[in-house]
């Protein structure tokens, strides 16, 4: 399979169920990898390959919730779908708080399962794209110097060069030079675009109006 083809990771301690669900998912057109324990999965998954996790909530040693929190620590957390045989309310609540993608009864209809997996994979793809974009964005901002960041913070507040020069105690021409450098480094054409990117990158705590003077 190609590197970009998403994989459905299924984690369940019940061998028979594992076989059955992997058959169904494969027949439904998904690439599937099965693991009989959460630990095994955490050791052997490929972080860079997109996908989602389908895990039994109840497993010996390391249960579904443990897996969820372990996954959350990783840089590329995959969406996690829980399989449950029964309505275990406290576990469900905890799982939802942890950002579970969905809950599926073990005997949920196939369509619901396939939809949920498709949705999870789409979310993963989306999240991966978003993460990639944001990473790229952050890399652009990383290129800015400390002074440029200071200038930027004033610019996105809509302040004039004159005001910025006064506030920072520098010459207005210097402010202009910084602004040119910023737009080049961040590859933007307009102040509006600059403001949007800054917000997307989440560089400054929003809103920035309370930014203290003299900094």
């Amino acid at each position, binding site marked *: 399979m190609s590197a970009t083809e998403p994989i459905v990771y299924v984690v369940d301690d019940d061998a028979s*169920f594992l076989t*059955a669900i992997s058959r169904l998912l494969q027949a439904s057109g998904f690439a599937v990898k099965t693991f009989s324990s959460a630990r095994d999965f955490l050791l052997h998954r490929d972080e860079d390959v997109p996908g989602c996790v389908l895990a039994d909530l109840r497993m010996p040693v390391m249960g579904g919730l443990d897996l969820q929190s372990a996954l959350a620590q990783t840089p590329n957390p995959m969406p996690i779908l829980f399989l449950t*045989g029964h309505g275990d309310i406290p576990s469900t609540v905890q799982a939802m708080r942890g950002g579970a993608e969905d809950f599926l009864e*073990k005997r949920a209809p196939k369509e619901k399962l396939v939809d949920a997996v498709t949705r999870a994979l789409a979310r993963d793809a989306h999240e991966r794209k978003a993460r990639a974009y944001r990473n790229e964005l952050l890399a652009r901002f990383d290129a800015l110097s400390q002074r440029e960041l200071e200038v930027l913070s004033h610019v996105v507040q809509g302040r004039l060069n004159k005001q910025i020069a006064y506030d920072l105690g520098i010459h207005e021409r210097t402010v202009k030079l910084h602004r040119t450098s910023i737009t080049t480094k961040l590859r933007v054409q307009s102040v509006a675009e600059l403001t949007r990117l800054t917000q997307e990158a989440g560089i400054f705590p929003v809103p920035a109006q309370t930014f203290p003077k003299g900094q």
Partner: protein
Amino acid sequence: MSLITIIWSMLSSACLTLAGINLQIWCKNPKARANLLFSLAAVSTAAFAFCELWMMRAETTTAFATALKWTSLPGWLVSLSLVGFVRLYLRAGRPWLAWTVYSVRTLALLLNFMVGQNIIFMEITHLRHIPFLGETVSVAEGVRNPWMLVGQLGLVLLVIFVADAGVTAWRRGNRRTALTVGGSVVFFTIVATGQSLLVFWGIVQAPITASLFFFGVVAVMGYELSYNALRASQLDRELKVSQAGLREIEERMSLAVEGAHFGIWIRDLVRNEIWATDNWRALFGFKKTEPLELESILQRIYPEDRDAVRMLLARAIENNGNYQAEYRLILPNGEMHWIASHGRVEFDAAGNPILVRGLSHDITERKVAEQETQNLRDEIAHVGRVSMMGQLASSLAHEINQPLGAILRNAEAGGLFLQDASPDLDEIRAILDDIKKDVQRAGSVIDRMRGLLKRHSIEKRKVEVGELIRDVVALVRADAVARRVKLDVEIQDDLPLVSADRVHLQQVLLNLIFNGMDALDKVGRQDPRVRVTAQLDGAQLVEIAVSDDGHGIPADKLVRIFDPFFTTKPNGLGMGLPISRTIVEAHGGRILAENNNGGGAVFRFTLPTLDVATK
């Protein structure tokens, strides 16, 4: 009156009195021939004394000779009655010797009347007067009759006969009588014979006083007879007392037997007859006059119990046995009764069974009460299991959902495979196999659950302890996983089988494991574990232990932990452990709780191994 007259007449009257009493006894009881013979001897002694007195007072030789002649008759009678008395009384003495004594004495009597003036003297020539007891008495002198020896021979033979009989009686153990009767007869006969020999051969000048010695014999005989009469009346009294006692015991027995509604039956194995009390007939539903046969009795027994009772009876007769049984009867009116019987077989000297005595009573009430108690116990145990099912519910749902989910996924996958242009039949076959396995898996979970939910009383079967424990662990595994408790199972190899009721023992184990897990919940350990172990305890017990590493049991609660309604859990009913104890004890085992050295509690219970339980 002279001393001689006084002595001799007293002697005679004493003899006559004794004779009269004993004659009367004989008249009332003709079987008492000893009394008749005694009277004869006493009368003869009196007659002898009379003749002696006659001789002592004789004035002429003729009178003396006549008196002497007549002494032979009572003398002969005394000998005869003595022989008869000894034979009768001592039940000894040689018959030929007795007949010899009779013959010789009779011959002497005949000679007495035929030869000379009497058997002592051919002719009395003159009388001499000699002093005796302060008086002058007559003694004879004359030509002696040599035939006198025949009479004296007879007396010697009499002594020999009596001595011989005495010895025989002595040897037989009848020592007192042998000594008194035999001894006195021998002694007095020897003395009397000796005296007459000395007198008649003229060695001693004295009158004949044989009656004195005969009286001695008579006195001893009289003593013996009256002693016996006394003893007889004493025995009679004792007999009456003991008979009265016996009747009293019989009365009490029958009162007790009737009061307790006991029925008694006796089966004569020799004549093949059966006798039974009215109570017994009422118990078994037989009319008072209805003839009884073993087969018709056995037919009254509830068919399921019949063969067992039949075998029990046969075995009791074959071995030297008592039997004891509890069984049901179906009476002709359709009523069912529980009967308890016990009985004993009696054997003759050769060891052949001759009769069977049996006692039966109705224990229906007790049995019904027992059954009710048992039902109640079963009901409580059942309630315990149902409430435990509540705890198990989520675990069981998981256990069932797992295979059901697998089945559904497999079926859906199979449906998709079939949509292919060329379906992979091998894969579809594999899918169907897996579905079959999962159906069985789900089925076995349901079976286990149903087994626990069913209400049933204890039925002991052969149980393999390891399998039992593994089954229970399979039931709680999912629950343990949800509670993050690890279940360790350790079963000794080659454990013997136990006789037990699976479901009830599963209940005990489930209860103990749940308790262990509950204890761990409160502690919040890093690596919570419940250990279930089984091992041999001695040769006759299997010990199963469930331990946890929780908080343990506070010492003050340890003693009460098996009490009903005693609980340490906020939502506990306090019935789990009392039910467990009832179940374990119904299996002949024991259960106890203690604290582990390393913290946590351990519950141990024992079960007797199969070969012990069936003994």
